[in-house]
């Protein structure tokens, strides 16, 4: 039996086992899911190598599994995050209902993603895509009926995307006669030559998963409503499947664009880039007015995906590299952050930032993980997030000449500091409250995945080359030649360099020196006090008084940016939905429930057909 099938089978059987085992031993599903995913990952990384393929026929359609260096990159994200998230999940989900159901879908989602990575033809791609979609839908609605509306929204948009994609896929089959991705690319299916709608439809399909404006409206609530151990994957890995597809399509558009149609690809570049930029801006400004940490992170995910799309849309070497790098790093830090939110949710009962605060002393390790991820998210040196941002800006400025987009992206990434701070402050800083007195650090199996991921951020900051290597290979697979990379030196095409190892050592040294200085100096006279010990005009805050500033956190910004908040995509989609609803209501009324009407219909139809019979049924 083929290794591809074995891996998929391991995942599938562990999904089934997880579903069944919870009825036998309560709570065992998590462990089974973890073991299954780990086993699959071990098998994947040890036995499978790039270039393996396996062809078979199903339903009269030629299909192929394979692994190429581009998808390998995403496999790292999916499986790495999958293992850690499932480990995290064991404790996080402990004691909840319907664990079998949850883990069944959890593993199936990962199965779907692994399948997408394996698939070399559109049909398997689509099959696994849909498996991933519905299994994740089932998790989105896991948290009860209140989330089912969210789930439906998610499903509608996913279906919209998936069906756009399916249309393109069958069109490719109809026109070029192949389902193989490689053949289709070679045949020029993604050119804008005659069938411009094919790449567009595919891009729409991928854009839904990548939560690109204006198809993002499902994302904030779906991300925040599902259990956090899943959202880590949902936002961290699954959104990257959209990026995978977009990368594949876009790069082949750019590299195959013939001169006479390159105008279209230029337009596409601009449109996508701006969509990505606007996504980033809008999601950012919405993120910073959220009061729920989970929703904040959800919006932030959308914003980050916006950057990735901007990077991809450039199509230049550095830009694509930046996008892929950001994709990996985003998976790491957003995975961590959602895990952090989950840990807080589990320990403190809520992630509403107006209710929780001052957890830093109670959950120091969680805070540490959150801190590192937030630094990476904000793109502040020296962690991995900065590397990605650096390359993104450099590519926009130096290669694609998209200067105003730089400003837009930069605006969003500056505004990202606001919500980054909001997140850390809201949950961990501020006054310690009586309500959260009982809170303790999350269990070990939850802390370890977070810390591993957080440390990965340091590694990716110091040695981004570790990621550049697979990325460069992936890009070479996509058709870029001579992708240069260095272990820890970033270079743009003008030759300017940023040396991460220097930065790292400098920051490290100065930090240590100043830290030692400030700690030792007057060590005896330094007293560490609680957060009630503050100077509030001589007033003493009482135990139950909560002075933490949490409501209307960025009100001034909101006021300043009021015009930006006026238009909401949500509203537009709602209007569309209402219009459709009216149409449905109207059509429903065709069926009056009256037999005479139906008889009348028959007669009218008969008469009409008889009148038009000659034109209708001419030989």
């Amino acid at each position, binding site marked *: 039996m083929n290794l591809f099938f074995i891996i998929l089978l391991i995942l599938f059987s562990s999904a089934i086992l997880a579903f069944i085992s919870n009825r036998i031993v309560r709570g065992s599903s998590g462990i089974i899911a973890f073991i299954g995913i780990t086993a699959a990952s071990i098998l994947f990384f040890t036995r499978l190598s790039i270039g393996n393929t396996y062809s078979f026929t199903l339903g009269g359609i030629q299909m192929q599994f394979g692994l190429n260096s581009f998808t390998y990159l995403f496999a790292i994200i999916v499986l790495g995050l999958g293992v850690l998230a499932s480990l995290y999940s064991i404790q996080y989900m402990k004691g909840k209902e319907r664990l079998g159901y949850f883990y069944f879908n959890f593993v199936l989602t990962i199965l779907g993603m692994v399948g997408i990575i394996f698939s070399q033809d559109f049909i398997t791609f689509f099959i696994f895509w849909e498996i991933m979609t519905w299994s994740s839908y089932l998790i989105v609605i896991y948290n009860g009926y209140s989330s089912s509306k969210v789930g439906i929204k998610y499903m509608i948009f996913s279906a919209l995307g998936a069906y756009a994609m399916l249309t393109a896929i069958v069109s490719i089959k109809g026109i070029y006669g192949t389902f193989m991705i490689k053949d289709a690319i070679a045949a020029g299916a993604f050119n804008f030559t005659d069938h411009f709608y094919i790449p567009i439809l595919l891009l729409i399909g991928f854009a839904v998963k990548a939560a690109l404006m204006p198809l993002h409206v499902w994302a904030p609530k779906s991300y925040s409503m599902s259990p956090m151990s899943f959202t880590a994957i949902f936002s961290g890995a699954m959104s990257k499947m959209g990026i995978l597809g977009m990368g594949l399509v876009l790069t082949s558009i750019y590299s195959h664009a013939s001169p006479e149609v390159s105008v279209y690809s230029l337009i596409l570049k601009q449109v996508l880039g701006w969509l990505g930029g606007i996504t980033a801006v809008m999601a950012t400004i919405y993120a910073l007015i959220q009061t729920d940490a989970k929703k904040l992170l959800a919006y932030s995910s959308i914003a980050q995906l916006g950057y990735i799309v901007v990077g991809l849309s450039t199509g230049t070497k550095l830009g694509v590299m930046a996008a892929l790098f950001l994709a990996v790093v985003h998976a790491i830090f957003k995975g961590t952050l959602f895990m952090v939110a989950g840990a807080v949710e589990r320990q403190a009962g809520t992630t509403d930032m107006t209710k929780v605060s001052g957890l830093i002393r109670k959950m120091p390790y969680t805070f540490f993980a959150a801190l590192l991820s937030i630094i990476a998210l904000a793109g502040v040196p020296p962690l991995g997030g900065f590397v990605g941002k650096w390359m993104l800006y450099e590519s926009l400025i130096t290669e694609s000449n998209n200067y105003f987009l730089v400003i837009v992206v930069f605006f969003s990434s500056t505004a990202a500091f606001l919500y980054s701070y909001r997140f850390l402050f809201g949950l961990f800083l501020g006054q310690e409250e009586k309500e959260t007195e009982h809170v303790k650090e999350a269990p070990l199996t939850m802390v370890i995945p977070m810390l591993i991921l957080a440390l990965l951020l340091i590694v990716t900051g110091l040695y981004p080359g570790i990621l550049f290597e697979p990325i460069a290979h992936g890009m070479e697979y996509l058709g870029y030649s001579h992708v240069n990379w260095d272990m820890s030196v970033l270079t743009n095409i003008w030759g300017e360099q940023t040396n991460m190892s220097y930065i790292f050592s400098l920051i490290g040294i100065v930090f240590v020196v100043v830290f030692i200085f400030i700690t030792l100096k007057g060590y005896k*006279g330094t007293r560490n006090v609680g957060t*009630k*010990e503050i100077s509030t005009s001589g007033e003493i805050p009482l135990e139950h008084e909560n002075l933490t500033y949490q409501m209307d956190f960025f009100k001034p910004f909101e006021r300043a940016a009021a015009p930006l908040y006026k238009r909401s995509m949500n509203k537009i989609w709602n209007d569309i939905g209402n219009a459709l609803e009216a149409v449905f209501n109207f059509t429903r009324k065709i069926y009056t429930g009256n037999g005479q009407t139906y008889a009348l219909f028959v007669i009218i139809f008969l008469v009409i057909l008889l009148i038009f019979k000659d034109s209708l049924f001419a030989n």
Partner: protein
Amino acid sequence: MINDKDSQKIVDYIQNFSRKHSLFVMAYGTGCGAIEIPATMTSRYDAERFGIRGAATPRQADVLLITGYLATKTLKRVIRVYEQMQEPKYVIGFGSCTINGGMYYDSYNTINALEQYIPVDVYINGCMPRPESVISGFIKLQELIQQGKADNGKRYRENLEWYRANQKKIIKNWKMPDYNW
């Protein structure tokens, strides 16, 4: 670090010199005297030339300036602010009211002698003391600092029980964190 006595002296001198010339004042505008502070700070009298400037919070402040009478209700806040200041810290009692109650000596809700509740380094007499006298009071404080005699924080620590007892007499609902320096 520096055990040598002479060096310690030099260090002390430098420290005292800078302490003396950099007085961050927490002006606690408790009474009518607060109106004199702006005059002291602004162009006419310009206390800043002596390095005196306002501090917004007790954490940053060196000098606690009690301007005038002190209602019993306010006392608690003053004590709180005082305790939150970092050593070395100094207290200036401003106006007659802080010395003996002044014109409010028989009021039911003011305290008479500030000294009973927190240690005071310098009193500035008058009702109101003019900015000139305020500045002279500051200069007196600077002299004390230079001589190393301004040991307000130490006094408070050492006589904490006495001060506490006095404070508790006035403040009925005593709910204060411990002073544990």
